[in-house]
């Protein structure tokens, strides 16, 4: 919790020496409280004052990085409970479980996972990393899994079974900053010393939330700086309770042991658990199911929940082909607000009519808002259509505009020049099908 000016003032030397540039210690304290000055400007500040101010300004949830290089995953650093209060900042890492006992050729499997790239609304979905299950009886195969993971540059998690086996895997992976996960309920001691020795992050578990908070705080004191919390919950409602109370407790700073990101295991067929975790504050998920039909909705959900609610998601302006349109296909224009784009493109697609959908930069606003703000005027749309080369794509020299902005048609015709026709489309995307059938079919 932030300190008030008076609380800070009591920690200052109260000499009014002016070395900080302010006439009094109180004035300086007020600036510190507002976050506008640094305590470094006070040469006489005590250690106690530095410690107190440092703790108060630390983020409520510590950031933790797993992996190294450009694929490294950093989680934590969240500052709100509801996304609309500000935004959620660090997308949870979605890791795939690699089980050495089940995978014949780890290299081929990891290569396949590493190659996955799915583009969606300006983001590339990829497998964030690999969670290697440590199996004492298959030590060589485990090391092969570690090799494959490193070779493809993916961040690694070690799902430990024994301190010895896990220690060997960590030894191999240590330069890549793996996350070490002890078996749930195991004595954390031996694992904590492995993590401390290599300076890597560690998952802490406990039978209940109180024990979890104290155990995490103790492990941090013992020299493991980066800790993730594994909620003790046995079922979905208990998990929801744990996730909620950990986040709430971290933001309210009720216990230092709660100020860490959350780790979650998701078994086969547990899609609801993954959905709950992504929606409600989990930071690292290790998912056993490697099926694409499970991952695509989870990636998409993460994209939705971690979108900054203050900044509308935007599409890149351009000409989007729906089906395989040609010079005779209809050309529709809309704004670059992602939601608008998705709704319009989905409806066009459903008609089965190949079309050109031109997305114009309207600063991410929906059609009516953009028009009111002057970002979707006839001039602006006309200029954009020419600059994007849309005017060369169709032989019929006709462009369809959203029904809500029929008023721009005259100005747009002028902007496009001789021979161009502007056709007013439906107000709602859901009426594109009857529009194509009843109106467009009578054109070119």
């Amino acid at each position: 919790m932030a300190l008030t000016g008076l609380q800070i003032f009591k920690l200052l030397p109260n000499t009014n020496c002016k070395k900080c540039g302010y006439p009094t210690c109180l004035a300086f304290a007020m600036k510190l409280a507002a976050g506008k000055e640094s305590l470094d400007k006070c040469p006489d500040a005590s250690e106690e004052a530095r410690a107190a101010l440092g703790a108060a300004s630390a983020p409520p949830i510590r950031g933790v990085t797993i992996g190294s290089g450009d694929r490294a995953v950093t989680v934590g650093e969240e500052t709100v409970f509801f996304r609309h209060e500000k935004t959620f900042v660090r997308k949870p890492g979605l890791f795939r479980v690699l089980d050495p006992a089940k995978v014949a050729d780890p290299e081929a499997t990891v290569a396949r996972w590493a190659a996955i790239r799915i583009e969606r609304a300006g983001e590339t979905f990829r497998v964030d990393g690999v969670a290697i299950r440590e199996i004492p009886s298959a030590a060589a195969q485990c090391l092969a899994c570690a090799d494959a993971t490193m070779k493809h540059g993916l961040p690694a998690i070690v799902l430990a079974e024994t301190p010895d086996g896990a220690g060997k895997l960590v030894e191999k992976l240590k330069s890549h900053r793996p996350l070490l996960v002890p078996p749930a309920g195991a004595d954390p001691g031996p694992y904590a010393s492995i993590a401390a020795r290599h300076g890597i992050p560690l998952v802490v578990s406990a039978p209940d939330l109180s024990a979890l908070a104290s155990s995490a705080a103790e492990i941090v004191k013992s020299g493991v700086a980066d800790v993730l919390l594994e909620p003790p919950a046995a079922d979905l409602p208990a998990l929801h309770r744990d996730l909620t109370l950990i986040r709430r407790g971290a933001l309210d700073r009720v216990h230092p042991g709660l100020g860490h990101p959350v780790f979650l295991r998701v078994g086969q067929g547990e899609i609801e658990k993954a959905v709950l975790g992504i929606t409600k504050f989990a930071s690292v998920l290790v998912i056993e199911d490697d099926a694409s039909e499970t991952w695509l909705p989870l990636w998409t959900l993460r994209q939705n929940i971690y979108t900054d609610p203050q900044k509308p998601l935007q599409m890149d302006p351009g000409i989007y082909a729906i089906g395989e349109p040609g010079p005779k296909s209809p050309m529709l224009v809309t704004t670059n607000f992602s939601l608008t784009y998705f709704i319009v493109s989905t409806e066009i697609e459903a008609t089965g009519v190949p079309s050109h959908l031109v997305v114009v930069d309207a600063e991410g606003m929906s059609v009516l808002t953009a028009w009111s703000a002057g970002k979707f005027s006839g001039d602006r749309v006309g200029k954009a259509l020419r600059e994007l080369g849309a005017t060369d794509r169709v032989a019929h020299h006709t462009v369809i505009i959203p029904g809500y902005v029929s008023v721009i048609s005259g100005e747009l015709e002028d902007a496009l020049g001789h021979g161009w026709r502007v056709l007013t489309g439906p107000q709602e995307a859901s009426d594109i099908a009857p529009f194509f059938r009843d109106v467009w079919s009578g054109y070119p």
Partner: protein
Amino acid sequence: MSLNLKPKKWAGAIRQVTLGARTRRPLVVAGGRGLPMHTFEAEFPHRPALALEITDVDPPRWPDAVRQPWDGVVGRPGEAAARAVRDFGADLLMLHLVGTHPDRGNRTADEAVADVRGVLKAVDVPLIVKGPGTGQKQNEVLSRVAEQCAGEGLVLHSACQEDFRTLAAVTVAYGHVLVAESPIDINIAKQVNILLSESNVDLNRVLIDPLTGGLGYGLEYTYSVMERVRLAALGGDTMLNCPVICLVGEEAWKAKEAKVPADKEPLWGDQRARGLHWEIATATPLLLAGADILVLRHPDALAHVRRTIDVWFPQTAGG
């Protein structure tokens, strides 16, 4: 240091609304006194209710994966209703009168009444009746249904800010429940309720439809508006504390991701399971954001969400 985590207490509560009357087995929804699904710290007298969607005619836009469980009864509302309740365990139904839309068959209000009667005869659960969408036809169809099925406590879907008077009047006159729809906008959600309340509609007979964005198609907007509506309601705003209904099925199955076959997008995986997951991953976050009624399309999606609700509310009976 031991943990001191006090339960959060709120001044307000969500209204309890009774769906169905007369020949219907009544179902009471909502009434929660805390943040959605926060059963560990607040009282929830009723569990979220799960509806299945059925249609008056064969709906052209339903992908095969979601038609398959309805094989043989698609577009036969009476038979579909019986299957939805007896085989699939729906708490209530939504009859979507797709075919009354001027562009999709333009069926008459009397035909709609016959369809509604067929469903009421086949099952005794409460019924949501969704019209063809805003405009004159919507009012014509829904007010005839409301009049001809007086006293059944039907849920009429829906009135909006621009067009609410007709449906407000028949809701009051014939003893039904009205859905107030708003375009993912908390201010409009409140405004419609104020308008309804000024038109003598008892807000204990109103549901809020915040407009559902499907997964990947605006889910986050709906999610956050619902969280804000719930916060306002719990803070004591009596114009926003109506139960929330989300039309999940139609939004989830509209997504491209639920429609494209696996051979077209090999990285997307099995089409049927993908569609099902799309519906589950739309429904579950909305439950967490405060949905009191979910309208689903695929019975397997309902079964999944049902399992979640069963663990979550072991002591709470439906209704």
